[in-house]
């Protein structure tokens, strides 16, 4: 009798361990962080009548606050990070941020009528979580957006955004690596292309 109760208890403990684990404190924190960041982004970028310069400034602030830019920059250089010189790395990180701001600010221009919902989240490891969200647009299918979040000392940073299963970091890395390959495997070639792109408009 006693033995079987122990077994039931054990089974319950096992179930709790296996199925209860996914949403622990870390994931909930990351979830809250994404909710706050999303709401903030919607509030600050959807404001009508603000100038292009002001919108860019606000986007830059949000980007620097919420994203782990050095880590993303490193990832997007792929295998070439190891062969880049320190000077190249420094210049590349700066240009990368400029490039992202230039390429992505416009995508946040038209947020009116759209709604941002956090759906659920899951721990990937002790310091990493994945937060699932969607953007609801009237009369259109919702867009699934998943965020990878890295947490350290109660500070959260986004390391990747996946839109409908497509990772922005992976896309950027594939493109950058291809540019480096075409310029004879030199990181300098990519830096030159980024310089040109970010100064053109």
């Amino acid at each position, binding site marked *: 009798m006693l033995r079987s109760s122990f077994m039931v208890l054990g089974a319950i403990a096992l179930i709790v361990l296996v199925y209860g684990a996914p949403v622990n404190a870390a994931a909930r924190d990351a979830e809250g962080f994404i909710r706050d960041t999303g709401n903030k982004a919607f509030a600050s970028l959807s404001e009508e009548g603000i100038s292009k310069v002001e919108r860019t400034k606000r986007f830059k602030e949000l980007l620097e606050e919420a994203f782990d830019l050095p*880590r993303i920059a490193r990832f997007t250089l792929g295998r070439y990070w190891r062969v880049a010189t320190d000077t190249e790395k420094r210049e590349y990180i700066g240009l990368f941020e400029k490039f992202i701001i230039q390429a992505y600010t416009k995508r946040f221009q038209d947020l009116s009528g759209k709604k941002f919902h956090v759906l659920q989240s899951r721990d990937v490891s002790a310091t990493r979580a994945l937060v699932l969200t969607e953007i609801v647009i009237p009369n259109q299918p919702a867009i699934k957006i998943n965020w990878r979040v890295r947490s350290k000392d109660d500070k959260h940073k986004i390391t990747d955004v996946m839109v409908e299963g497509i990772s922005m970091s992976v896309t950027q890395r*594939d493109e950058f690596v291809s540019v480096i390959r075409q310029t004879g495997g030199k990181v300098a070639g990519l830096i030159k292309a980024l310089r040109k792109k970010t100064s053109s408009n």
Partner: protein
Amino acid sequence: MNVSSKFKRRVPGTLIPLAFAGLLLAGCAAAPPPEDKEAVAAFKEANDPYEPFNRAMLDFNLALDKAILRPVTSVYLEVVPDPLQTNVHNFLQNLRGPVIFANDLFQGELDRAGTALLRFTMNSTFGILGINDFAAEVGIEKHDEDFGQTLAIWEVESGPYLVLPIFGPSSPRDGVGLLADTLIDPFTWLTPLEYRIGRSFGTAVDKRARNFDQINDLEKNSLDFYSAVRSLYRQKRRDEIRNGALPTNNPVPGSLSGVPDGKFGDQQSKVTPTER
């Protein structure tokens, strides 16, 4: 008319684009020297030995887009009211019903096959020939499948990246899938040529219209449009093959192993993949 003569009459038109594949042999990229390790690894990762040919095909497709598809789509977006555009999309998507149903069966996804069949029946009748997505309104959500995905489920390798003339980004696996879907599709056999041309063109305009801003945006903001498209195509196909479930091992910054398998992923796969 018997089936074999129909086959002879209809299939060559589909085969012509694939014949371009023969040109590939002329457009092979030179592999980097073996002593340059980074270059060799990057070359392998890109899995694009026909890059010169593919770039030429992309240029060809873009020229065609600028000359025909983009102008037509601009007018379409300008002139046709949004609700009517949705009707057009629903109608064209409903025609894919039998192909989706067949591929669900090939993949052993009986639940999804049932959904596809139910949707096709409901939308073709209550939805008035498919112009209204009646099934979605009562909670039977849409999904998509094609034979390229079926081959992937059957563990056929995708092969290298391949840009097909007119059809765009593809692979040997998806090229075969495209041909197979045409053969599976009852409308290929039941309808006249004019209808099929109209349907293909309509589908192209509908797809272009739904991605109009994104394509412009990508052309404007990419350093290398070709490799950005290649990356997007591959990631999108992987997502479609998984039916929108989370990847189990996707190397991304800040993640060594990605998301583990399990309950969570299964829940995701039941979420209907949204339209692209």
